[in-house]
Structure formats: structure tokens, C-alpha cells
């Protein structure tokens, strides 16, 4: 056993089907390398929490194995696994004070002198003053830090976090995201973090696995997932994407030329995750902030070589740092465009004719056989 891989989490062919026949997790392989901050991201019911609970030992997999480093822990009960969990809504013991909550794990392993360790740990999470209070006397943020301290004091090989920030308000959540990231860097333990908040996953994790319907849809660094989504679910669930159905016209060098609504679009072949045969369909995607908006009167000033689409402003909302436009175009009735408020063009009001244009390098291509709305909020509701 090398120290480098002792904190690896290796899931091999792991799957979970409940007695009632519901399959929460389809058999899958997943490796979380030692020391990484790994996020399982998905909507509720996608299997991310079940996956986490199988690592913790709270749920037994129907198929497959769980390895921590070289040790097979598949059939170990949770109290024999070197893994600790920060539970959703914390699960702090209401009858014990903060000190005893944090000392719980140490005491169960028969460690006698816990005082120094617990005090150090409470200092780390800035709760030294609160040691003798009961959990219900603390604020949500403080309870969250107790939950982290209670798990970390056991030096687990892996720390599991189940929606740890879900109960906090937005401002506190941002603060705790940075705090958790700091702690992870400091202790160097593998963190596996389950969340439905894509911004949270991208802020905190080195690697994100996007899960949907019991499967991992795509795995990669946050920037990679955002820039190169492989499925419509990832494209829509992580941020917003404009997806246009297009037909493959020709190929020219490294680029694919597509026809959409009478116009032509250029897509680098390397950024297309679907097979592109002439005459076949693909979904062309572009993120709203990559698009520039020019009034139709100035269409001549747009440089050559950019993808362009004409349309009409349907709606404009001023957000502060940016303005979000909805453009009605022939290829897509609700094209989202985010424009930074550097120099605002006063002519871009609802009803104005505009040209949307963006660099072909920011275009991605997806398999047209998928549901174009997968992962959007409309679908979730």
C-alpha cells in the first residue's frame, strides 16, 4: 500500500437496486484519487446520495465493490470504515453538547484523553467558545462547522459531505464553500461532496461527476464540463446553453459546416461529441455569455468568420453587471444572450432587429437524438 493511493476511492461496477425494484444507481465505475475534492452533482433522485451512502457503508451495493486504497470495504459496516460523513442537516446529537458531539468518534474508539484534540479541532472551526452549548443553541452555520469538526477529528481517509450547505442561506453558503475548500487544502484528505447546486460544485471541486438517472453523464474539471459538455443534460444543468438543431452540410478541414434556418454555422470537429455525417443532424450549442449582440444597422461591422444568426429582441432584463436578452430568431425562439454592461447600446430594446454572432471556437456539437430540454429547470418542474 503506497501512501499516495491509500485515500483513493475505487468503485467497481457498483449499483444499487432497492427491494421494491427501483434502481437508484446503475452499475458504474468511478475512481476518486487521493487528496482530491470530488463533487457528485445532480438533481434530486439521480443517485448521488445513494452512491455516497454506499461509500460510507450506510447502504449496501447490490452489485460491485468499494475499495479504499487497496482495502475492500464493500461489506464492512460503517463503524469499521475509515470514512466519515457530514450529514445533510448535520445530524448533530441533540442530547450532547458541542464538545461531546466532536469527541464522539474518538471516545467510541476508546481514546481516553480527548480534551486537547477536541479543543484544537473546535479552534480550527472557530467554535472554541461554544464547546458547552447544545446544538440547538447554535446558528445554522455554526452547526455546520460542528458537523465538519465531528467528522474531521477522526482523520478519515475520505470525508463524505451530503448536501452539507443545503440548509444555509446564500451568503453563508458562499462563505462556507470557501471555508470548506480551505480546510480541504489544509488537511489534504479526499473529499467527496454531494450537491445539487452546480455553482457550488464548480466553485469547490477539482473534479465533478454529473449524475442523471443513476448514471454518471460526464466527469471532468469544472471548466472542462462547462466548455465541452458531452450531453444536453450537462449542457443545460451546468449553466445555460442555447441549443439549435442543425444539419451537417460539408466538412472543411477541421471544421464541420452546418445549415440552420437558412444560415451557415461553423463547428470545430474536435468540439463535436456526436458522429457528424453529411445530411445528419446535430445539436449546436453556445453559452449565452459567448455571444455578442449587434444592432442590425451595424451588421456590416461584424468581422468575417464568426457564426451569425439574425433575430429580434423579445425581452431585455437589466441585472447590474450584465443585461440578459431573450432573442426571437428563426432557429430558436428563445435565444439567451448575456452582455456585459460596458457600453450599453440604447437601441437594443424589445422589438429591435439584431445580429447574434460568436466565435466558432465557442461552439459545441451534441448528439441530436437526445432530449433537447434534458436538465433544464422546465424539465425538472
Amino acid at each position: 500500500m503506497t501512501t499516495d493511493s491509500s485515500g483513493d476511492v475505487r468503485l467497481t461496477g457498483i449499483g444499487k437496486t432497492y427491494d421494491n425494484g427501483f434502481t437508484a444507481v446503475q452499475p458504474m465505475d468511478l475512481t476518486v484519487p487521493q487528496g482530491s475534492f470530488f463533487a457528485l452533482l445532480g438533481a434530486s433522485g439521480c443517485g448521488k446520495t445513494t452512491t455516497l451512502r454506499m461509500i460510507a457503508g450506510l447502504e449496501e451495493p447490490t452489485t460491485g465493490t468499494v475499495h479504499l486504497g487497496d482495502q475492500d470495504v464493500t461489506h464492512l459496516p460503517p463503524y469499521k470504515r475509515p470514512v466519515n460523513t457530514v450529514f445533510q442537516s448535520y445530524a448533530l446529537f441533540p442530547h450532547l453538547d458541542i464538545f461531546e458531539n466532536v469527541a464522539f468518534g474518538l471516545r467510541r474508539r476508546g481514546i481516553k484523553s480527548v480534551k486537547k484534540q477536541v479543543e484544537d479541532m473546535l479552534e480550527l472551526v472557530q467554535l472554541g467558545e461554544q464547546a458547552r452549548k447544545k446544538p440547538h443553541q447554535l446558528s445554522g452555520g455554526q452547526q455546520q462547522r460542528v458537523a465538519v469538526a465531528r467528522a474531521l477529528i477522526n482523520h478519515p481517509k475520505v470525508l463524505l459531505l451530503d448536501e452539507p450547505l443545503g440548509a444555509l442561506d446564500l451568503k453563508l453558503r458562499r462563505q462556507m464553500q470557501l471555508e470548506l475548500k480551505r480546510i480541504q487544502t489544509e488537511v489534504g484528505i479526499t473529499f467527496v461532496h454531494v450537491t445539487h447546486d452546480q455553482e457550488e460544485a464548480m466553485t469547490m471541486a477539482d473534479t465533478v461527476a454529473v449524475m442523471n438517472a443513476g448514471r454518471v453523464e460526464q466527469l471532468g474539471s469544472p471548466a472542462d464540463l462547462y466548455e465541452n459538455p458531452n450531453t444536453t443534460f450537462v449542457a443545460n444543468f451546468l449553466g445555460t446553453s442555447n441549443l439549435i438543431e442543425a444539419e451537417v452540410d460539408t466538412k472543411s478541414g477541421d471544421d464541420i459546416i452546418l445549415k440552420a434556418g437558412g444560415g451557415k454555422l461553423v463547428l470545430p470537429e474536435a468540439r463535436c461529441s456526436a458522429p457528424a455525417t453529411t445530411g445528419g443532424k446535430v445539436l449546436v450549442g453556445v453559452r449565452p455569455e459567448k455571444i455578442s449582440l449587434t444592432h442590425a444597422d451595424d451588421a456590416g461591422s461584424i468581422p468575417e468568420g464568426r457564426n451569425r444568426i439574425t433575430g429580434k429582441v423579445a425581452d431585455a432584463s437589466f441585472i447590474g453587471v450584465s443585461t440578459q436578452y431573450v432573442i426571437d430568431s428563426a432557429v430558436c425562439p428563445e435565444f439567451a444572450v448575456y452582455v456585459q454592461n460596458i457600453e450599453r447600446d440604447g437601441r437594443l430594446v424589445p422589438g429591435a432587429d439584431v445580429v447574434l454572432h460568436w466565435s466558432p471556437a465557442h461552439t459545441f456539437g451534441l448528439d441530436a437524438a437526445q432530449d433537447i430540454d434534458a436538465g433544464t429547470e422546465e424539465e425538472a418542474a
Partner: protein
Amino acid sequence: MPFVNWLKKNLVVIAGLLTLGYLLLPNVIVTVFSFNKPKGRFNYEWQQFSLDAWKQPCGVADMCGSLSISLRIAALATIGATVLGTMIAFALVRYRFRARGAVNSLIFLPMAMPEVVMAASLLTLFLNMGAQLGFYTILIAHIMFCLSFVVTAVKARVMSMDPRLEEAARDLYAGPVQTFVRVTLPIAAPGIAAGALLSFALSFDDFIITNFNAGSTVTFPMFVWGSAQRGTPVQINVIGTAMFLVAVLFVLASMLINNRRNRQKA
């Protein structure tokens, strides 16, 4: 018409307080008549003030003996019913098993059965078995009818308990026994305590079932029943008043302590 308006607004309060008066009136009478010095054998009419009974609470033959029998039975019945009932409650909430519906009915039926029916049928059983009626038959009967109340009280508490707390304990290296002792039991404690308290009160005050199955053993309620026929000593009122006061003081004290503790911590 401000008065009519006031009356309309507070009608429910007035009605509620009248009901409260109805509930408390007998206790007032019991207390007042504990200072009576009755002429005859019965203590139903006010004669004159006297502290005699308070000075000699055990001055009546057999009364304090019956009190101690009642207290002993109540204590043992409470322990028995609480242990057995808590086990059943945990099984019902925490596990899936066959015959769950039958078990639930068996718990519910004793609470939906008139006491006299249980009393009579239990007596038939004891007579058929040739059991010696007395302390132990009373105890058996009391554990039987207290059980369901404990199950109900504990079940409610365990059901409202977050299952993640036990998962957290297991995650933090507590094995099954440790999890139960360190987490489950302390959190279920208020429900268990409520069930135990109820058992004690029910057992101590039970008359009908006891009357059928006591043989020649005399519990405190049976002593009171007998005295209603033979003559009611004032000491009965002394005991009744004292228990009422002890109960109220006990509750008030625990409330005050709780309040102070909460204020200190907040």
C-alpha cells in the same frame, strides 16, 4: 355595548375557565375536608376545623399498609411495562416483520376495551389456572394494561427521531450496542419517561381491574372503596391532598429549573 362585545370575545375563555373549575372543585373539597372533624363515620358534611388527621396520617388501621402495597405494585408495574413496551415500540418503528397488523391490534385492543371486561376475563383465566389471587395477580394485570400506553408513548417519540442520528453514530465508530446506548436511548428517553409516568399513575389509581383480581390483598383505591361502605376516615383526604400538592410542586419545580437553565444558556 362594550360589555356585550367583551363577552362575545371572551366567551370561550369564560366557558373554558368554568370547565376548569368543574375539574378542580372536587380537589378543593377533598382539601377542605381534610381539615374536618366529622361527627359520624362518614366525612361528607362539614363540622369543624381540625388538624387531627394531618397530625396522624397513618392513624387509620390498614390505610398506610394499603398505600405501600399500591406504591410497590405501581413501581414494579411501571418497570415491567416500560421495559416490555419500549422493546415493542422499537420493533414496530425500526423493523419490518410479518404479522405487524396483528401486533398493532393486540396493542390497540386493551386501550379500546372497557376495564370491567378485561378484569372479568382475567379473573376467569386466574380461576381456571387455579392461581392464588393477590399481589402478583394484581401486578400481572397492571403490567398488561400499562403496556399499550408505554408502546404508544415511546412509538411517537422514536418515530419523530431523525434516522440520520443513528447513521451518524455508526459513521463515528459506534457499533450497534454503542449506537443504541449512546444515541438512541438518550433521545428516546422523554418518550420512555412519559410512558413510565403514565404507567405509574394508571397502576397506582387503578380500581376496577384490581378489585377483580386482588383476592384478599387491599390496595389504596380498594381501601377507599371499602371505606365508602364502612365509613370514610379523614386521613383519606389527607393522602389525596398531599399527593395533589406533591405532584403540582414537582411539576412547578421542574418547570422553574428548566426555565432558568434555558435562560442561562440563551
